[in-house]
């Protein structure tokens, strides 16, 4: 019950007044169909194109290799990150409270009577207060990104066609900025990462994440402005390009064949990721923070308990409990680890281990809770309560026996 009490803050699409079905639907669409929360690292499925949280869909696919929405066959390898959805959700979530507040305010004023139909309320709110607040919010985001990451002025004053991608990039770097607290500590690893900046950018997703983290920490540590030149992903070929060069790159990138380019780069990235992931983990990082080896799916039935225990120990996760407990912990760890890798702003492995421990605790408390509830009821039917039950209903049993025997007596003579 502890988990419920602590997380009682419930936001829900039904928070929006029923006169605004569009906003309700929008709110609903930005939520994972599995956990009903806003997407946490949205992943789109390969064949059917449904979107879920990374961890949610990975948990489902561990049980059944089917899309939770349409039941089409689906493998974990077919999941791809859906960054646009992440950004949409983040923008919406950022303005949600403001929008809700302004809605309730405008609804409570007597001028905005109930006779207004949904359309006018909708457009009125968006047109006046809400959009203003949204724009100030966006401006604030933009300012904060500019001051910390120093996005060049031309980038913001681009032609309108690029306004969207610009905003997206801003949102992106903004979010990266409020990452977990580990970054400041990892300063000695910055240099190794910076050196790796000169490696061709396509080589590895992992590395891209690292460089992004580095940019962030260099920004906070305050190294020369040259190094602060923010790199962004090309929306077309996913290549990491300096922000000042992105437009030139985009022109070139879009004029070349987009489809073949994209697919080859994606497959190259995933291939490289598979092969290079263990090698690219820098030694210094391992020393500075806790970097755990990437776990893989195991054939649990073929593993003995001691072997599984050793595997868990090697992976750095607690090797306690019996085989079943270790197995569930390992499954969850694989899912958590991979979901964290999917994330735009992955947390440190130390934080991930904490999450694993918290998950296990909540599982245990769930079990304890339901166990406490189920056990008495199941015990009622077992030995101790049978006597209680017999004692309680002794009278009614007696009358039933009497009735039955009297019925027998009346029946018997007639039969004979």
């Amino acid at each position, binding site marked *: 019950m502890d988990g419920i009490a602590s997380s009682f803050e419930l936001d829900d699409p*039904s928070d929006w007044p029923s006169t605004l079905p569009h906003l309700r639907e929008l709110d609903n669409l930005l939520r994972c169909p599995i*956990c*009903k*929360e806003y997407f946490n690292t949205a992943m789109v499925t390969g064949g059917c194109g449904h979107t879920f949280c990374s961890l949610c869909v990975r948990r489902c696919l561990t049980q059944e290799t089917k899309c939770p929405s349409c039941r089409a066959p689906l493998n974990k390898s077919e999941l791809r990150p859906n960054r646009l959805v992440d950004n949409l959700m983040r923008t919406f979530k950022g303005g949600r409270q403001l929008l809700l507040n302004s809605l309730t305010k405008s609804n409570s004023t007597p001028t905005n009577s109930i006779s207004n139909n949904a359309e006018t309320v909708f457009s009125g709110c968006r047109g006046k207060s809400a959009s203003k607040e949204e724009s100030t919010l966006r401006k604030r985001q933009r300012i904060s990104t500019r001051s910390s990451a120093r996005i060049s002025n031309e980038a913001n004053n681009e032609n309108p066609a690029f306004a969207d991608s610009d905003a997206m990039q801003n949102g992106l770097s903004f979010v990266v900025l409020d990452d977990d607290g580990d970054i400041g500590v990892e300063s000695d690893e910055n240099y190794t990462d910076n050196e790796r900046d000169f490696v061709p950018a396509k080589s590895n997703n992992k590395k891209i994440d690292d460089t992004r983290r580095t940019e962030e920490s260099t920004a906070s540590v305050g190294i020369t402005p040259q190094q602060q030149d923010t790199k962004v992903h090309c929306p077309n070929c996913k290549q990491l390009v300096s922000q000042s060069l992105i437009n030139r790159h985009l022109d070139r990138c879009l004029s070349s064949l987009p489809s073949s380019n994209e697919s080859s780069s994606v497959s190259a990235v995933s291939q490289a990721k598979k092969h290079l992931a263990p090698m690219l983990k820098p030694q210094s990082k391992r020393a500075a923070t806790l970097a755990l080896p990437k776990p893989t799916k195991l054939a649990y039935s073929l593993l003995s308990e001691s072997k599984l225990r050793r595997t868990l120990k090697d992976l750095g996760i607690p090797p306690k409990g019996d085989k079943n407990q270790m197995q569930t912990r390992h499954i969850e760890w694989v899912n958590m680890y991979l979901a964290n890798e999917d994330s735009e702003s992955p947390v440190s492995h130390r934080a991930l281990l904490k999450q694993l421990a918290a998950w296990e605790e*909540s599982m245990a408390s769930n079990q304890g809770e339901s166990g406490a509830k189920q056990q008495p009821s199941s015990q009622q039917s077992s030995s101790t309560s049978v006597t209680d039950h017999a004692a309680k209903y002794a009278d009614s049993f007696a009358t039933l026996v009497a009735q039955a025997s009297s019925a027998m007596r009346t029946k018997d003579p007639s039969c004979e």
Partner: protein
Amino acid sequence: MSMVPKRIMKEVERLNKDPVPGIEVDIVEGNIRYFNVIMAGPSQSPYEGGHFKLELFLPEEYPMSPPKVRFLTKMYHPNIDKLGRICLDILKDKWSPALQIRTVLLSIQALLSAPNPDDPLANDVAEQWKTNEKQAIQTAAAWTRKYASQ
């Protein structure tokens, strides 16, 4: 899973705020996973006018495994047996974690409108439904009046 109780809370909140027409859901005191449901029989079906009681339980693995639902009111329906158990694919192998209490109850309501005697749970009822549908529908309506009118 810490997210699961939160999801249940959300679903309950949603069902309270935005109830499904013709379906009433009450939490059984002291157990967030156990619900009493009263479902109105769909119109233009032999169950019209009836108020059917169901119980719904969310097992620990929910939403990874389906809720357990059972009719408490006696039903004359080819896919509902004497014990009130329901033969519905989404409650068994077609379950998906993207489904929820609301969708399950709506599906059950739909099953009342469209009985499927080809996939029976109550064999005698299904047989009757196939051989003499008119008679079967009359019986179902009679049962509704007898057991489900309040």
